[in-house]
């Protein structure tokens, strides 16, 4: 570049590519040389089988700079009209306290962390999640809560599944209160159909007249009505049915809790505790139950244990319930929680405290009573019991006029199919809004109504509102954590203190294999909290969200091109949910062509646990296919199994590149074999980051595949959620993907059921992937894949002389991740993969994936975003650790009393005046000199997993135990 460089070369359109990809051209070349290749394309040719190579650029728009992409997205966003949505149905406007918005939701220290599999460097978010569980327990009146599920409707479906697991009833039917949220009825129906359960929908009062294994009620119900569920609950329980209640969390601040009515399971959305509606998500759904059902609970549960110094510490408990251990016998296929959103809800509760939350709830309720009283005064009737939702009796021309006025005033009301309109007030409602609503609903009749006057006339009357017997008497959120941080100074510092306990991408590489912890660029994240994307209600009229829908359509097209599919369904809001949705499409397609007997799902032994767990949800029979000693599918075994099951073969679930991080040569033949025998191919997209621009699942032979937008397409992991798992499908499956009962989608059959609560899943995080693809373009995405493969091979090559690298493909190359084998070292030294994982914390790293897909190994995925210097720092750490292990092998270090077994080391260790270990404090905490400049301190010593599971405690401990 000099003064004569032409303008063309000075443009910035491709500038983001170099921001996203860590190694620059010089480093890339050096790394290639290390591996003996001249160029990235040489490396890819040597790694990727020729038969699957794409050999053309992806047909995507040219890359845009960050500013160009933001400006184009802003243009789309501004096409959304921000009307005030009072639709309710589980989604309410809320105020995200600014201190939480800026320091958590918009803060990479919180949103880039992974699921807390390594609890010693995750104590901050684990502490908040425990508070979240405590908040849920208190408000619902239950004994045990999990750390969140995807959305209220899927949580309700999980409640049904739990009911079936624990109920002593022989019935195969599940009852749904007809006034449950429509999307929840939809999702439960779909799930029940897959399990083969019968569904009975009826009036809540009649529930116990049916013979059922379980039942669910909405509290308050869809129309706002509050009913004492106690009698129904006891009558059902007398018949061995398990009773579930979907409850609005805010209302529970004022209502008798479902737990006090005897409910067995309580679920709901925590969105209105400070999480934007975001056109449907992401939000955290809560799930609470009785202690006796703890082993039947789906999802993550955070519990209390102790560390090696006896200090209280938090961890994920009872993981043996989950898919990664129990596979098709797991309670659920659920993998992701919604950690970021659950934590925001908990922080909202801490920030406001019990009195603050109660005040918000009382204000909402008071405004609703005033609104109702004014309407009644003018002769318009509403439901007499309510918390925040009125179903207003207006019909015919009167209703049309009201809707017309609502549109003029910028309000979205719930349009029912009867002669009523629904209005749900929320935290953002004001006295002025109530007066406008009177005008909207009453027209000229509103004249003379005044909020202050009506407010005064309500006096102490409880004629309308919450029935006296259903008013909450019990205290909630009494724990100190909810009563300490009500000024912003304290809150800010508490949030920062928690954040500092967690290792995130803001600190270091997180080389978790199969997790693709790449950069979540700031420019990708910014649009998430733009009001145009964060404010819309998922059921807002289409014409108000045309910008949103355009963005979603464009992203669908991009993903279809990248993956080689004909269509994309955005509804699944996690990877595992995508598997379920994809298998559902396969099943419904097979049924449509008369192949109803096809129910066998072939799954390689190396598959993610979600695969068999998802197949189980479809009532498919899981048949495991062996892997050969190279980590590839054993084609001979596959042929035998296919032959054996050819008449009943429904699908093969295959991960590509394989979970062993290898591009299998035979993959096309494998897909063909399945098709030749009447089956469909489901390709797990977990490893798509090795394929983008290089090969396409659709071309290889996949009929359907989920795309983990939170891996390959830059949605951050949120410390354990949210994710997004849209599925790409071939044309023949397109009619059979999920539709939605409230928002009808174009494409899927009208009778296709929903898999998630919201029509486009967690829509508000889709701009992240849109931005990434727009800024990278075809060339940038290809280069990202090439560098991801380069970096994995670079690490494999540099570590090879120190640790055995398992599984390679042609020319000895791995794909985008590599597995190193610690079993020989364990045999020789007693040092385990866990010791190495914990020791890496002392070097400032998060461990790679432990013991998956092979026990006793570590799987390393660096991603394209990590610069070479960071890769070298990691390699140096691994080599130093290898030397420490050698000292144990040689007997130079004690087999138990060494820096590996005692890892990680904390400041408490370094300050220990009675340090009597046979290695120095320097060796413990500063094994390499660069740590003196920058050191991440784990906040606790190694956590005792066994103690935690034997002494299960999943609520906030007494305050004295925090030291």
């Amino acid at each position, binding site marked *: 570049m000099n003064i004569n460089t032409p303008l063309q070369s000075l443009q910035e359109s491709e500038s983001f590519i170099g921001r996203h990809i860590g190694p620059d051209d010089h480093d890339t070349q050096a790394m290639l040389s290390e591996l003996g290749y001249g160029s990235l394309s040489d490396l890819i040719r040597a790694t990727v089988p020729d038969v699957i190579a794409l050999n053309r650029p992806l047909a995507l728009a040219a890359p845009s700079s960050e500013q160009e992409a933001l400006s184009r997205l802003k243009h789309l966003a501004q096409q959304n009209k921000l009307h005030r949505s009072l639709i309710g149905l589980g989604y309410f406007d809320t105020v995200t306290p600014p201190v939480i918005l800026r320091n958590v939701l918009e803060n990479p220290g919180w949103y880039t962390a992974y699921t807390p599999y390594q609890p010693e460097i995750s104590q901050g978010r684990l502490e908040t999640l425990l508070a979240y569980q405590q908040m849920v327990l208190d408000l619902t009146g239950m004994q045990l809560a999990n750390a969140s599920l995807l959305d209220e409707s899927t949580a309700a479906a999980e409640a049904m599944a739990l009911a079936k697991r624990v109920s002593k009833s022989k019935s195969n039917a599940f009852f749904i209160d007809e006034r449950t949220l429509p999307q929840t009825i939809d999702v439960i129906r779909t799930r029940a159909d897959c399990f083969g359960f019968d569904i009975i929908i009826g009036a809540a009062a009649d529930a116990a007249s049916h013979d059922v294994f379980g039942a669910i009620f909405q509290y308050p119900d869809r129309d706002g009505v509050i009913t004492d569920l106690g009698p129904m609950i006891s009558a059902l329980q007398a018949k061995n049915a398990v009773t579930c209640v979907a409850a609005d969390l805010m209302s529970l601040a004022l209502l008798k809790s479902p737990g006090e009515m005897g409910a067995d399971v309580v679920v709901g959305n925590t969105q209105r505790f400070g999480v934007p509606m975001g056109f449907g998500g992401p939000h955290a759904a809560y799930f609470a139950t009785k202690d006796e059902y703890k082993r039947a609970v789906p999802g993550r549960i955070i519990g209390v244990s102790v560390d090696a110094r006896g200090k209280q510490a938090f961890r994920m408990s009872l*993981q*043996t319930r989950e898919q990664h251990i129990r596979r098709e016998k797991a309670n659920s296929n659920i993998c992701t929680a919604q950690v970021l959103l659950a934590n925001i809800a908990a922080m909202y509760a801490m920030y406001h405290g019990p009195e603050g939350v109660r005040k918000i709830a009382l204000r909402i309720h008071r405004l609703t009573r005033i609104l109702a009283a004014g309407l009644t005064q003018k002769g318009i009737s509403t439901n007499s019991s309510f918390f925040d939702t009125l179903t207003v009796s207006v019909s015919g021309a009167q209703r049309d006029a009201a809707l017309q006025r609502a549109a003029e005033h910028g309000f979205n009301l719930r349009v029912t199919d009867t002669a009523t309109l629904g209005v749900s007030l929320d935290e953002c409602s004001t006295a002025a809004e109530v007066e406008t609503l009177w005008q909207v609903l009453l027209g000229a009749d509103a004249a003379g109504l005044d909020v202050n006057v009506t407010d005064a006339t309500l006096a102490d009357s409880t004629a309308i509102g919450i029935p006296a017997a259903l008013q909450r008497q019990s205290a909630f959120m009494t724990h100190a954590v909810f009563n300490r941080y009500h000024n912003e100074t304290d809150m800010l510092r508490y949030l920062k203190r928690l954040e500092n306990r967690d290792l995130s991408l803001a600190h270091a590489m997180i080389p978790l294999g199969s997790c693709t912890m790449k950069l979540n660029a700031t420019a990708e994240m910014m649009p998430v909290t733009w009001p145009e994307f964060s404010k819309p209600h998922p059921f807002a009229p289409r014409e108000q969200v045309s910008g949103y829908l355009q963005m979603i359509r464009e992203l669908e097209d991009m993903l279809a091109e990248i993956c080689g599919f004909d269509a994309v369904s955005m509804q699944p809001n996690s990877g595992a949910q995508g598997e379920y949705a994809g298998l559902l499409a396969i099943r419904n397609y097979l049924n449509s062509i008369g192949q109803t007997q096809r129910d066998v799902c072939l799954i390689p032994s190396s598959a993610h646990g979600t695969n068999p767990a998802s197949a189980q949800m479809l009532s498919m029979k899981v048949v495991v296919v062996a892997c050969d000693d190279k980590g590839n599918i054993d084609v001979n075994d596959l042929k035998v199994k296919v032959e054996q099951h050819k008449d009943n073969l429904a699908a093969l679930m295959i991960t590509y590149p394989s979970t062993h991080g290898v591009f299998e040569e035979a993959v096309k033949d494998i897909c063909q074999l399945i098709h030749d025998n009447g089956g469909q191919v489901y390709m797990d997209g977990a490893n798509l980051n090795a394929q983008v621009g290089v090969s396409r699942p659709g071309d290889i032979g996949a009929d359907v595949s989920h795309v983990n937008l939170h891996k390959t397409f830059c949605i951050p992991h949120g410390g354990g959620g949210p994710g997004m798992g849209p599925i790409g499908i071939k044309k023949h499956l397109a009619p059979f993907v999920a539709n939605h009962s409230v928002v009808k989608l174009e494409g899927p059959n009208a009778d296709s059921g929903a898999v998630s609560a919201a029509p486009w899943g967690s829509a508000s995080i889709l701009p992240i992937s849109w931005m990434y693809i727009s800024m990278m373009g075809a060339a940038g995405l290809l280069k990202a894949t090439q560098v991801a493969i380069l970096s994995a091979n670079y690490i494999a090559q540099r570590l090879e002389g120190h640790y055995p690298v398992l599984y390679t493909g042609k020319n000895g190359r791995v794909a985008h991740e590599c597995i190193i084998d610690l079993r020989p070292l364990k045999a020789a030294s007693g040092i385990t993969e866990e010791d190495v994982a914990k020791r890496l914390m002392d070097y400032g790293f998060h461990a790679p994936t432990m013991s998956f897909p092979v026990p006793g190994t570590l799987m390393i995925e660096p991603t394209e975003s990590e610069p070479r210097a960071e890769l070298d720092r990691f390699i140096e750490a691994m080599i130093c650790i290898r030397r420490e292990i050698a000292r144990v092998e040689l007997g130079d270090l004690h087999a138990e009393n060494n820096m590996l077994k005692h890892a990680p080391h904390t400041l408490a260790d370094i300050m220990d005046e009675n340090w009597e270990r046979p290695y120095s404090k320097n060796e413990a905490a500063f094994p390499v000199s660069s740590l003196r400049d920058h050191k991440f301190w784990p906040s606790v010593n190694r956590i005792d*997993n*066994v103690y935690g*599971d034997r002494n299960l405690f999943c609520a906030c401990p007494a305050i004295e135990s925090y030291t």
Partner: protein
Amino acid sequence: MSDFPDDLKYSATHEWVRLEEDGTVTMGITDHAQELLGDIVFIDLPEEGKVVDARQEMSVVESVKAASDIYAPISGEIIAVNEDLADAPETVNSAPYTDGWICRILPSNPAEIEELLDADTYAGMCE
């Protein structure tokens, strides 16, 4: 090195049985099984009075990282359950063949006991 007492019979799925003098059978999981599982944190004890068939899943034993089904080694009725394991599952680690027993079964087909593996055969299988 795992312990394989000679006076016991074994199943391929890592359960042991001991024929008692009264004709009932005591069963548990083997030393080898508890070693593989690691620290046991929970045992889903079978219900007393339940009738099981040989090789039927009857219980689950869990460590922090693994869950393993326990299969009925023989057919019969479960006549006693080691309730102490509810509060002290670690007993299965420390004393798998004695205090760590899981249940007693009244065999409905005593001939099945003879079909189980002897200590040497089972030990060979575990190598």
